[in-house]
């Protein structure tokens, strides 16, 4: 298989000492930042992007892979020891993991999460290596109309299908689309929504939006809620190693979690919440000790943690092959690629084959490093959890603003960052999801130009979107996904009225 020879080439790139060092630094700082309470992988990657600016593209992407997996792992450590999941995907891990830690079994909980993540990421990265080239073969035949259809699906699934209400999700998406309009139009060179401010001509930076919405918005929310005395981390007592019984109870949930997580992550619908909740429910049903669930069942940590990591590797499939981010983390990663002047998509596999396979190989290596480094270093991560909250958030704000002005030293950029922080605070406060805004900013301009290219090719006839079966089907799916929640909600209300 050609994938294997490409992958071997990738490993020969990734295993060079300098690149190994980049991967190790990435894994360590990724875990260190990801472990901080309230910081999920998306924010970890966004905060650490500027650190990788000046490296060569190969090195920075490899470091990036390490940061990504490190951030994921750090998030689950916080969920287990502190019961403050940094992102919705580790909510389930906190459910059983924190109970285990309280019962003095924090070590095995961390271990099953670590080994489960390792197994899941290993299998899922293999899946990525084999699935991606196949998808690329299909994707190179895509016309702009097909891309437009795909982006519609991504818009609808990210904003309307999940989340507390489609109205709020779509509003968040609209905010992102609106920001995407700003700047010089690529096709005609006209300025849109710049209000005469020259700094806006280049458009809004995705990292500025992500850091503003996530980091500053979160800091404002935590401060406003008076959560000044957080829960103390639970010390890890006893052996950190899993017993024979733990292994026996864990290995099947790991595999099942992987099987659930990877395909759902790879769909353009994306998201890690669904697979983690699914995995949790399945493990509870299949467990021989269902009575332990809710009181610290190891299956309830092993399964969802594997599902979470497998779906994270799954989201890399649409990201790398189609340039389609389906989660906030993937959206921030796409912004990172664009900063190195790399545009993910089918062409990436032909133009920068060495880079892609180097990245896939680094994912394997970062995965092994995580397993080797993290369990022995768990004492250090626990110490990081003890940083007083005022200093923690003050430090986060300094780091966030530093990254923004390092990338673009202007007062306008800082004002944008503060403004996005205020919007992010209000969105969190009133329960609007954040990810659709980031995805809208990235995909909005791409969808705009895909649609306009299609219409230029058809001399202005919009029927071109429906004459090609691919785009017609995808637009159909997007429409159904948009309308379905409203109908189902209407139906369920109707049923409630009947009762």
């Amino acid at each position: 298989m050609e994938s294997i020879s490409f992958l071997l080439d990738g490993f020969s790139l990734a295993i060079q000492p300098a690149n190994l060092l980049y991967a190790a630094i990435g894994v360590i700082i990724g875990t260190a930042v990801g472990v901080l309470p309230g910081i999920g992988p998306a924010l970890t990657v966004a905060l650490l992007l500027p650190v990788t600016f000046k490296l060569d593209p190969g090195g920075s992407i490899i470091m990036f892979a390490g940061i990504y997996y490190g951030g994921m792992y750090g998030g689950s450590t916080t969920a287990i020891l502190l019961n403050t999941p940094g992102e919705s995907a580790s909510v389930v891990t906190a459910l059983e993991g924190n109970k285990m830690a309280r019962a003095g079994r924090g070590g095995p909980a961390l271990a099953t999460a670590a080994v489960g993540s390792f197994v899941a990421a290993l299998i899922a990265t293999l899946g990525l290596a084999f699935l991606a080239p196949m998808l690329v073969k299909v994707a190179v035949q895509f016309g702009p109309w097909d891309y437009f259809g795909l982006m519609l699906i991504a818009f609808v699934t990210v904003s309307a299908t999940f989340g507390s209400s489609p109205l709020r999700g779509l509003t968040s998406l609209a905010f992102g689309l609106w920001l995407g309009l700003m700047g010089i139009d690529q096709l005609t060179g006209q300025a849109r929504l710049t209000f005469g401010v020259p700094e806006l001509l280049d458009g809004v930076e995705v990292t500025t939006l992500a850091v503003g919405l996530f980091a500053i918005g979160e800091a404002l929310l935590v401060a406003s809620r008076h959560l000044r005395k957080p829960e103390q981390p639970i010390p890890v007592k006893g052996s950190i190693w899993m017993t024979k019984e733990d292994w026996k109870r864990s290995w099947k949930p790991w595999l099942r979690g992987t099987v659930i997580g990877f395909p759902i992550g790879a769909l353009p619908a994306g998201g890690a919440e669904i697979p983690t909740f699914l995995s949790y429910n399945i493990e509870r049903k299949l467990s021989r000790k269902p009575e332990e669930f809710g009181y610290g069942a190891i299956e309830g940590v092993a399964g969802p943690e594997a599902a979470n990591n497998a779906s994270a590797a799954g989201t890399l499939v649409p990201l790398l092959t189609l340039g389609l981010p389906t989660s906030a983390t993937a959206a921030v990663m796409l912004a990172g690629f664009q900063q190195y002047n790399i545009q993910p998509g089918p062409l990436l596999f032909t133009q920068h084959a060495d880079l892609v396979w180097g990245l896939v190989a680094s994912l394997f290596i970062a995965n092994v490093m995580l397993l080797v480094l993290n369990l022995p270093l768990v004492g250090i991560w626990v110490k990081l959890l003890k940083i007083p909250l005022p200093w923690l958030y003050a430090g986060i704000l300094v780091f966030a603003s530093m990254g923004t002005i390092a990338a673009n030293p202007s007062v306008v950029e800082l004002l944008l960052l503060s403004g996005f922080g205020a919007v992010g605070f209000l969105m969190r406060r009133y329960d609007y999801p954040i990810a659709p805004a980031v995805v809208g900013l990235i995909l909005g301009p791409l969808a705009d130009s895909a649609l306009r290219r299609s219409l230029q090719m058809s001399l202005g006839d919009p029927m071109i979107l429906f004459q090609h079966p691919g785009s017609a089907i995808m637009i159909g799916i997007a429409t159904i996904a948009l309308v379905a929640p409203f109908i189902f909600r209407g139906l369920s209300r109707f049923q409630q009225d009947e009762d």
Partner: protein
Amino acid sequence: MITKTPSSVNRTPAVIAVVLFAVAAITYWDASHMATRATYGMSASAASYFVALLFLVLGIGHLVSAFKPSDIDIEMADWKAVAWIGLALAGLVVSIWLGGGFILGSTLLFAFTARAFGRKALLVDVCLGAVIGMFVFLLFNKLLTLALPQGPLERLF
């Protein structure tokens, strides 16, 4: 702590609806001032008109939901803490705007944010913020050769 609005209209969605209408109007106004037309297909203003329409529809949606019972509970907020963080960000912006440099700006940002989270020892936090700002500046400007804004303090290095 949960606040219940006594009136029959939910204030929050109503206010958001007004904001959405305003954004729709601004976007429409901006698009109508774009001169160049495309020869074939859509011109650059079409996407603006679409987004304006989307905002209009979402605004109507929010207006409708304002007359329904609220499905989320809004917690009480400590606006004083929020104001401190606002002051912290303003400190950074003003410092960089007036040429005070990154270290001074991040010191203010650090100290005021810590204050927002309930720290009272402002002097200690100012010192700590200055040390962190200096460390970050040296790391980024010297080691990673990224240009952070410079003021009188930074020129000493």
